[in-house]
């Protein structure tokens, strides 16, 4: 009788190995960071101060490359998370910041080359990052509406052209592919 009681358990284990497994392939090898502190948190201001200090800590062409790419990644993830939670105004601001940092990367290649540095590996990394960003931005475009009117309490409403913003971000990345 004891054996019969164990039968469903044994069958369960056997069935486990026959569950059809779906495979997911990453399109870009580039890995984005986890979401950092979000606006509204008391640590967000502190993080922004840290961000400004780090700008000087990461001096040099390669240093600035890493700094700007890291910030661009961070704000892209922040934007995506905020859009997921329907925080469109904040999401839009984060996306603009990500764009700004992404655009600031390129001049560092020119400077690095002028300073005799081999930038080939960094350029590959930059392109991979651009591909990953495009991948994520396309997902964002699918979850937001083209226009959103943000109406905060006791303040005048803001019209957010979300598709326009995302398309602009996409263009900035596509230019570097």
């Amino acid at each position: 009788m004891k054996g019969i009681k164990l039968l469903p358990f044994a069958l369960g284990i056997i069935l486990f190995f026959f569950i059809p497994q779906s495979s997911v392939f990453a399109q870009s090898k580039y890995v984005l960071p986890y979401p950092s502190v979000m606006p509204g948190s008391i640590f967000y201001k502190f993080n922004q101060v840290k961000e400004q200090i780090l700008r000087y800590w990461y001096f040099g062409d390669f240093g600035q490359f890493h700094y700007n790419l890291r910030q661009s990644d961070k704000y892209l993830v922040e934007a995506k998370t905020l859009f997921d939670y329907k925080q469109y105004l904040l999401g839009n601001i984060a996306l603009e910041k990500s764009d700004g940092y992404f655009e600031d990367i390129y001049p560092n290649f020119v400077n690095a080359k002028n300073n005799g540095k081999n930038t080939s590996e960094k350029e590959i990394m930059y392109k991979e990052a651009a591909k990953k960003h495009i991948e994520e931005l396309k997902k964002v475009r699918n979850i937001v509406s083209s226009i959103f009117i943000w109406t905060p309490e006791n303040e005048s409403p803001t019209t957010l052209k979300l598709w326009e913003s995302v398309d602009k971000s996409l263009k900035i990345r596509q230019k570097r592919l």
Partner: protein
Amino acid sequence: MRLVYVFIATLVLFSVFTYAFVDKNLSYLNNLYTGLYFTNRFLLVSIYTFLISILFGCFYFLINHQKKINLKKIIFFTITVTIFAYPAALAFDIFNYITTAKVLFLYQENPYTIYPIEFKGDPYLEFTRAANKTALYGPFWIILTGIPYFLGLGNFIVILFSFKLFIVGFFASTVFLINKIDKNATLFFALNPLVIIETLVSSHNDIVMIFFALLGIYFLKSRKVLSFFSLLASIMIKFATVFLIPVFLLSLFTKFRSKYRYFAISMLVVFFVSPLREELYPWYAIWFIAFTAFLYKNKFLQNLVLVFSFGLMLRYIPYMASGNYFGPTPIIRNILMLSPVLVFLIYSWFRSLKRKNA
């Protein structure tokens, strides 16, 4: 004293011996590459053990005949014969110092954020071992390395030897400082073969850290601000001297008599804690040898430090013999390091028993 000649002659041989380890990838010294460390491992281990044993044997007798020797002359010749030794025979740190300096001063990148390996095609990467690590040392050290780096005028060989000369300067200054604090302590530090090999041959920056720490201690009572900044400079070189702070503060505000004993203990604690971070490197012994030098009245302690220094130098043998850091190497290294200490302790114990019975 003939022993002095033997000591200096052995150092000359040791300096020549170091060239057996010229790195194959070090294109700048291609003409001196022999490949002996690949083909004649047993021979090299035998020569190394022989030379080290002679040096420590001489050192033991020199300690016991301090009054008969002209220390200044010996130190001068010691420096002269070791300055041209190949600095990367036992460790490759000097290449890290140079490459880190290059990242900051030539490429103008922050060595704490950028790996040397990121400078694709840089010729120094072929022989720099820690190219995949950001700067390992304190900011003051990195700034200081600008001096030998610029003195090298972009020529690797000149840079290499200006780094050596730079370290020699700190060795001489440390010896001078020890001599100023207590003349009787000088020989034990200056002629310790471990200190000579790790500082004058391998050019480790530990001597720079120790110099500033000793400077801080020297000015402890007379110029407190300078003393504080010296200790801070020392900490900003290699961080280990941060462990001196408690005894330093105690000495600053109280009449602390046995401070050198506690400085030595503090550095010994860091020394034994260091394997938690990486591993027990022989040159870390410079940290406590500098302070045990002042405890010359305790003959047993000095002999113990001498024997332990010898054991530490034996740690190089397993890698030299096998070319491998793994497998039995770590265990054999520890056995070799502890064996002389164990023999010494047993010998001392028997001697004390004999004395009691007599």
